[in-house]
C-alpha cells in the first residue's frame, strides 16, 4: 500500500531512514552497498538482494532517487563521507570497500570519498537487479550492466507518476463544468495519452522537432478515443467536445514538460542543447573511469591505444558523469559557439544552470 502511494506520488520526495541496514545476516566481511534515501530505491534494492547477506548504507539524498539527486547536487561525496562516518559501518565490517551505485557518478566524486575516508570505492551496476550477478562475479560490472535500461515496468511507473496527480485533478476540475460522466471520459482520455507515451517511449521519435509531432499525434489520438466514448455514452455535444479537447491539450502539455527528466534516455530539457562532451586525447591516460560510469556506452576503451574513444557519441545524454570522474580532466563540455565548460565547474555545480555557466569564471 505504501509503495503504491509512493509510486503514484513519486513526483514528491519520499524519505527513507538514513544509516546502515542489514540485509539477510551480514557479517564482518559482507559487502557494503551505498544508496540514497528514496523509499522506492531502498525497497527495490532490498528485493534485488533477497537471499543475500549484505550491508546497505543509506545516504541522505533528500528523499530523491540516486540519478536525480546526484545530477541535482543532492547526493554528493559529502553525503557519502557523512554516511560512512556517522552510520557506524566502520565498526560493523573489517574491510573498507564500498560499492557505489553507478548512477551516482554525476554527483559523487569517487576519489574524494577515498581520500577522505580511506575506503576503496567501487562502481556497482546501473540497475539494482544486476547487483547479485555483480557480487557473484567478484564485484566487477559487465558492459551491459553499465548501460541504463528503461524497461516496461519502469516506464509504467513513470506513467503512474504523471497519472497519479494529473488525472484526479483534471477530473475534479472538469466535473462541475461538464458533469461526472463527461469529465470521467476526459480524464480517461488523458490517462490513455500518458500511458501510450510511456509504453511506446523507446520507439517514439522524440528528438525530432522537440517531440512536437509526437505530442500532437498523442493529443489527437486521445481526443479521437474520447470523442468515441462520449458518443457511446450519449454525451456528445459542442461543450463536452470542447472540454475534451482542452483536457487532451493540457494533459499532453503537462505530461510532455518533463519527459526528459522522467526518463534516463534523453538529455535534460532544462539545459541548452547546443553542446557536447569533448574528449581531449592528449590528457587521456586510459584509466577508463569514464567507461565505468557512462550509462549509455558512449565511451569505450581502445585497448591498442591505451586510451578511451568516443564509440557512440549519438547516444550521449550529457549527464557529465564521465567529466566529473575523469582523474586527468580529459573530458569537458564544448558549446557550438566555441565556449568550453571545464570539469571543475561541473564538479562544483553539477548540471544546475549549465547554460549560465558556460562563461562563468569559477
Amino acid at each position, binding site marked *: 500500500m505504501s509503495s503504491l502511494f509512493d509510486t503514484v506520488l513519486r513526483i*514528491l520526495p519520499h524519505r527513507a531512514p*538514513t544509516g546502515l541496514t542489514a540485509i539477510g545476516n551480514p557479517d564482518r566481511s559482507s559487502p557494503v552497498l551505498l544508496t540514497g534515501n528514496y523509499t522506492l530505491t531502498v525497497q527495490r534494492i532490498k528485493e534485488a538482494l533477497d537471499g543475500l547477506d549484505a550491508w546497505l548504507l543509506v545516504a541522505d539524498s533528500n528523499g*530523491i532517487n540516486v540519478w536525480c539527486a546526484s545530477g541535482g547536487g543532492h547526493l554528493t561525496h*559529502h553525503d557519502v*563521507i*557523512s554516511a560512512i562516518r*556517522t*552510520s557506524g559501518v566502520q565498526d560493523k565490517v573489517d574491510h573498507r570497500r564500498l560499492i557505489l551505485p553507478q548512477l551516482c557518478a554525476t554527483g559523487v566524486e569517487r576519489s574524494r570519498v577515498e581520500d*577522505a575516508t580511506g575506503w576503496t570505492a567501487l562502481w556497482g551496476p546501473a540497475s539494482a537487479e544486476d547487483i547479485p550477478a555483480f557480487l557473484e562475479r567478484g564485484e566487477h560490472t559487465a558492459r551491459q550492466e553499465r548501460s541504463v535500461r528503461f524497461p516496461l515496468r519502469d516506464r509504467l511507473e513513470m506513467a503512474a507518476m504523471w497519472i497519479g496527480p494529473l488525472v484526479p485533478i483534471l477530473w475534479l476540475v472538469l466535473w462541475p463544468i461538464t458533469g461526472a460522466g463527461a469529465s470521467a471520459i476526459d480524464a480517461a482520455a488523458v490517462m490513455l495519452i500518458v500511458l501510450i507515451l510511456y509504453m511506446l517511449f523507446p520507439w517514439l521519435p522524440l528528438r525530432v522537432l522537440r517531440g512536437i509531432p509526437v505530442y500532437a499525434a498523442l493529443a489527437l489520438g486521445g481526443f479521437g478515443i474520447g470523442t468515441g466514448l462520449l458518443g457511446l455514452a450519449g454525451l456528445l455535444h459542442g461543450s463536452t467536445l470542447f472540454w475534451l479537447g482542452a483536457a487532451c491539450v493540457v494533459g499532453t502539455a503537462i505530461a510532455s514538460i518533463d519527459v526528459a527528466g522522467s526518463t534516463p534516455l534523453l538529455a535534460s530539457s532544462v539545459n541548452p542543447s547546443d553542446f557536447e562532451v569533448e574528449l581531449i586525447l592528449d590528457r587521456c591516460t586510459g584509466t577508463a573511469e569514464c567507461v565505468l560510469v557512462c550509462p549509455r556506452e558512449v565511451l569505450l576503451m581502445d585497448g591498442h591505444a591505451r586510451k578511451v574513444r568516443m564509440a557512440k557519441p549519438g547516444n550521449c545524454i550529457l549527464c557529465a558523469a564521465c567529466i566529473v570522474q575523469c582523474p586527468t580532466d580529459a573530458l569537458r563540455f564544448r558549446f557550438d559557439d566555441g565556449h568550453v565548460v571545464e570539469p571543475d565547474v561541473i564538479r562544483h555545480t553539477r548540471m*544546475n544552470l549549465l547554460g549560465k555557466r558556460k562563461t562563468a569564471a569559477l
Partner: protein
Amino acid sequence: MRRLESTPARYDRGIALLSGGRIGSVYERIAELAADRNVDVLDIGCGTGGVSIACAKRGATVVGIDRDAGMLEVAASKSSSIEWLELDSTEIEDRFDPECFDAIVSCLVFSEMSPQVQDYTLSIALSRLRPGGRLVIADEVEPEDAGQRVLYRLRRAPMVAATWLLTQTTTRPIRDLRKPLLDLGFGEVDSERPWPSFQIVTAIKPS
C-alpha cells in the same frame, strides 16, 4: 531550507521572507554572542554568508564552510576577506586540528541534519573548540508553551505542504539541544528565544 539552496541567488530574499524579516537580527545576535576582535570563528553551513559576515564585521577571523558550492559562490561575491570552503560538517576533522577555534556558530543547519549527523557534528565542534570557546547554534524549535505549540503546528502544516510541493523537502524543528550538549561535555549551556519557535543555544567548553 534546501529548496532555497537549490537557487542560491534567491536564498537571501527567500529566507528573509520566511523569517518575517527577522533573520538579519538573528545573524547579528549570533555574532554578538560568538565574535569579537581577533577571535577565530568557524561557521558551519554558512550558506550565503549572513552569519559569517556579521562575525567578520566585529573583527573576527572567520572560516565559512558549506557543502553547496552554489551557496559559497554567492557568499564569496559578498566578502573576500572570509575563507569559504566547500566542506560538510562531517568533514571538519579533515581540515582543522583540535582546539583551533574560539567560537563555532551554525544557523538553520541542524534542522537539515539527521540526528546521527547532529550528534557527530556536536562532538567534532567540542573537539575543535579551544578551552573556554563557545558554540552557538540557532534553529527552529517547537514553542515551549503548549497553546503556542498547537498554534505553531497549525500554522506550520500548510507551510510544510507548500514547501514539500515546491521544494522537494521538509525541514523539521530540532530537539532542544541543551541536554545533549551538557551530556557531551560542554560546561555552561544557555539559551534564548528571539521568538517562540526559534532558539539560540550557547554552550561553553570547560577551560
